[in-house]
């Protein structure tokens, strides 16, 4: 669906086998976590990406508390360029662009986190079960995955939003998540398949624990790093999808979002009036947040996969 499959997908999929090569029973211990942090904090890609994302997150979280105007207030003179009073200028109606931007960041992070959580949970569940159980269940789940994978999710989202009137950010995130899990399921399934035949899994099975416990305690910990990176990619994908929907005018009506800002800017011909401060910041914000997430992911790959670390 729109930008929901991260374009880095093909690459990560083939690297699957490599990343589970050192699988151990019970997964990472505490010492490993410290080691991971040690390398993460020394990786420039993780650091730069993380700082940018955190910076925007903090701005979105605490920013609205310090603003004098609400996003939709008619705060000042119309079409004013950036100034001390209005750091990002005002719209044709005299609304404070900076106030809108900060409020929009909030919805952006919300839709990213919720959408990624929904897609991640569905994708992992289906992937784990299909890969571990095998047989008919695998066939059926695999078929389901392939069907949802081929359906252009964005199109279905447009229909759902247009008809059912999805008017809040969490609802929007829920629907985005429901259509962006298939590639997660595929990747998790293939990794689970390769883990299934390991000795420690057999041992766990012999000791009589249930399937869900094995998946949770033995299989998943070996994939934590991979799952974390998947979450980061889903996060970015959800943000982009939501921005497109908002831009078409199918976004939430009770909240401000970065896509909605661009929608309004185009609708009220900001382009022809040259009000660049109205349409540049929202897109730039999305690009920086999502781009930093992607770059952070490359860094995380190096952190988790010692083979890729530069010496």
């Amino acid at each position, binding site marked *: 669906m*729109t930008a929901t499959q991260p*374009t880095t*997908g*093909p690459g990560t999929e083939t690297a699957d086998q490599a990343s589970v090569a050192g699988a151990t029973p019970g997964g990472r211990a505490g010492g490993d976590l410290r080691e991971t942090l040690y390398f993460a904090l020394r990786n420039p890609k993780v650091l730069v990406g993380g700082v940018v994302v955190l910076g925007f997150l903090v701005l979105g979280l605490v920013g609205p508390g310090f603003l004098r105007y609400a996003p939709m207030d008619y705060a000042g003179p119309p079409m004013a360029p950036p100034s001390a009073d209005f750091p990002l200028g005002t719209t044709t109606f005299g609304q404070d662009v900076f106030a809108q931007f900060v409020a929009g960041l909030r919805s952006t992070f919300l839709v990213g986190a919720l959408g990624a959580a929904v897609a991640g949970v569905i994708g992992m569940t289906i992937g784990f079960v299909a890969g571990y159980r095998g047989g008919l269940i695998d066939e059926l789940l695999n078929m389901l995955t392939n069907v949802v994978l*081929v*359906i252009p999710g964005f199109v279905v989202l*447009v229909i759902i939003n247009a008809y059912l009137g999805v008017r809040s950010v969490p609802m929007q995130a829920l629907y985005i998540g429901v259509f962006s899990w298939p590639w997660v399921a595929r990747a998790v399934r293939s990794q689970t398949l390769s883990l299934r035949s390991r000795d420690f899994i057999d041992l766990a099975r012999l000791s009589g624990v249930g399937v869900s416990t094995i998946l949770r305690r033995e299989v998943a910990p070996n994939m934590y790093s991979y799952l974390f990176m998947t979450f980061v990619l889903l996060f970015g994908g959800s943000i982009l999808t939501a*921005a497109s929907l908002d831009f078409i005018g199918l976004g939430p009506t009770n909240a401000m979002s970065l896509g909605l800002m661009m929608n309004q800017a*185009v609708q009220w011909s900001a382009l*022809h009036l040259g009000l660049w401060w109205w349409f540049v910041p929202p897109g730039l914000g999305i690009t920086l947040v999502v781009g930093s997430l992607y770059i952070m992911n490359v860094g995380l790959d190096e952190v988790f996969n010692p083979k890729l670390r530069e010496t």
Partner: protein
Amino acid sequence: MRGYLARKTLVYGLTFVAAVTLNWLIPRLMPGDPVQRMVARAAVQHPETIASMAAYYERTFGLDLPVWQQYLNYWAALFRGDLGTSVWLFPTPVSQVVLEAVPYTLGIMIPAIVLSFVVGNTVGAMAARSRWLDNVALPVGYLITAMPYMWLAILLAWGLGVALGWFPVAGGYDFGLVPQWSWTFVADLLHHWVLPFLSLFLVALGGWAIGMRNLIIYELESDYANYLSALGAPRRLVRRYAFRNAMLPQITGLALQLGTVLGGALVTEIVFGYPGLGKLVLSAIQNQDFFLLQGTLLFVVIGVLVANFVIDIVYVLVDPRTRTGLTGATA
């Protein structure tokens, strides 16, 4: 090979049924009544006129039948190529409206997809070769992949269109011209085509480059590459084998990316007021013309499925393992 194609056909068949069913079902879950809305728009006061108008619309759109029959009728109409009647452009059939818009969308999408795939893969393969290019190409690639499609479109429209005035920023051709096969018209058509094409091309480019770079690096670490180098094969030859192996996941990726690029094409068209499917979707939403919206989107779904199938056939031609029945592709 037959097993591979049969499996794929089954998946696409199921997908098609699922998409059509969703398309039929979702509108019926909607609060509100389209017939009432259409009658209300006519703004007549006379109750008998209202009743007969409502009855007429119910019959026209087949809403007075039992639900299962509506579902079957929907399928029957679909196979006749009948996607219903547009409310916005009443009484033009939806299929006609859609067919008029399709060439514009395909006209920007196909060149953008093909060129970005070729250029992106080439750049990616080159980037994996040199550290210097890699350090530039990688961050730039990630940033343009992270760009929302409409934002790049807006920037191009503003920069190259409004500020510099090199390209027109609205419509598929000059409003003073009549569509015909003349040099002036074709030149004008191309002039309007450049910016929507360029913005779609650029956003898609980054992803291919990054994917190819990662795959080449991965392939170069593999056993066959090491073995070849150990035999003393020239670097160029090893690279070429790596490239050919790396192309396979990229082709699969192309099929998966179609939906994404399509969503991008829709919003790009909206920015430029380009008279393709994206603009139809927008008009349909703004005018509450749900028949048009559904018809357009169903058409899009069918297009994506057909394109996927074509890519699968290409895959069979490119990857010998699918021909001999080994599991080359993840079906």
